[in-house]
């Protein structure tokens, strides 16, 4: 007898054949719905942050940022002096122009939003397995911070993600390590005034708290400096690091700037 799993697989294959996943792209319509404020509850004031990172304007900025990153990486790869210069001169967060981002009209959504941008969730693996997949030695915290549990590592998007979760699932600490760079879309940018230079040991880094938010139907997104999203970025030995804390759980909100820096400094290769 076929078991449920086999039937499930057959069904999924049949549906994938009937409706190819590559032909399904709901995001432009979902986004247009939200931007246009057609949903009653949203129009009543829920905050929404609209991602228009692929507009021509944003693409130009992304391209410039990408070229700068590539140039610095190339410089860093050539000489030790170049590496030091690049690591010292780099902005780890793209700077936004002010504390607002103009939003495009819903009707003018760029067609290239149809391009897939996400990968399926990767399974949790050990740090050693993540190192093997990433091709470099992944470093981790010697112990999980108080109130957090180490779930494991995931490898996707050419990056390793070490996940620590608060007991009530309302907060996370994620340490991302990659040879390939940071997120550099405008929505991951921050106003100059929100970027705090920090030192992780002898290494320069940058810390940002907040994110851009807006209301459905608004014409601009505004920087919210109190949003409980804190990101710390730095680079070490050619690897790009981001330590982010997300959510409102006490176990993560209690981690202030000094704590995050101390955690970053404590990252080590696990035995």
């Amino acid at each position, binding site marked *: 007898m076929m078991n449920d799993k086999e039937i499930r697989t057959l069904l999924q294959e049949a549906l*994938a054949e009937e409706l190819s996943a590559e032909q399904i792209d709901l995001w432009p319509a979902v986004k247009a719905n939200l931007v246009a404020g057609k949903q009653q509850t949203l129009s009543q004031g829920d905050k929404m942050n609209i991602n228009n990172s692929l507009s021509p304007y944003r693409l130009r900025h992304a391209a410039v940022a990408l070229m700068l990153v590539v140039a610095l990486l190339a410089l860093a790869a050539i000489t030790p002096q170049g590496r030091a210069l690049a690591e010292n001169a780099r902005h780890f967060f793209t700077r936004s122009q002010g504390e607002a981002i103009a939003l495009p009209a819903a009707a003018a959504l760029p067609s290239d939003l149809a391009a897939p941008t996400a990968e399926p969730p990767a399974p949790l693996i050990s740090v050693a397995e993540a190192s093997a997949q990433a091709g470099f030695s992944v470093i981790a915290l010697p112990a999980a911070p108080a109130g957090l549990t180490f779930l494991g590592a995931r490898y996707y998007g050419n990056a390793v993600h070490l996940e620590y979760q608060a007991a009530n699932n309302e907060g996370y600490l994620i340490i991302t390590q990659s040879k390939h760079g940071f997120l550099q879309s405008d929505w991951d940018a921050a106003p100059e005034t929100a970027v705090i230079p920090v030192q992780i040991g002898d290494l320069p880094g940058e810390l940002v708290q907040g994110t851009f938010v807006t209301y459905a139907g608004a014409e601009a997104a505004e920087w919210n400096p109190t949003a*409980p999203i804190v990101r710390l970025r730095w680079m070490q030995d050619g690897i790009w690091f981001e330590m982010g804390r997300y959510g409102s759980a006490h176990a993560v909100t209690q981690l202030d700037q000094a704590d995050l820096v101390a955690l970053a400094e404590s990252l080590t290769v696990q035995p």
Partner: protein
Amino acid sequence: MRKDMYMNDQIAISRLKQGDLTGLETLVKRYQAMAVHAAYLILYDRAQAEDVAQAAFVKTAERIHQFDGKRPFAPWLYQMVVNDALKLARKQQRLVSVDAESDESVTRVAEWLVDPAQRPEQILEQEEIRRLLLQAIASLPPEQRAVIVMRYFLNMSEASMSAKMERPLSTIKWWLRDARHRLRGLMESFG
């Protein structure tokens, strides 16, 4: 590197709860295919299935603060999809017709679904099996299709399905057993 490759579900949901739609974009990209597939299995209409899935993601943005972070996201989403698809299907009582004159094989499958004793004698081409499976399911009433989706996409318990469908547990058990046995037998007869 694409902007949302860094995000797992937890980060995406956390961002969305803060009003950051990049979190929703990640969830849409990640789950849209399964959501449309689940709706399609009940509605058998691609446009309607995409509308239902799209509406579910808009509801996700509206209701994310009601989401229990201790639970996985996918079943929460898929339940909205199934509920809305079933409501629409009930309104339309959409039944996919099986044209006996145009496709004899499908006709035999449909007849066999009604009466498992009438097993199809012809061994069909392997590549036809999946197509016939979908058509066979289409011949079921919407409630039984929804039961299949809940069982095979959502891994829901019979008790949960009973509550969702507002039907007695015995009815759910019968629907599920009937649908499962017929599907199993159908596929084995082609195997």
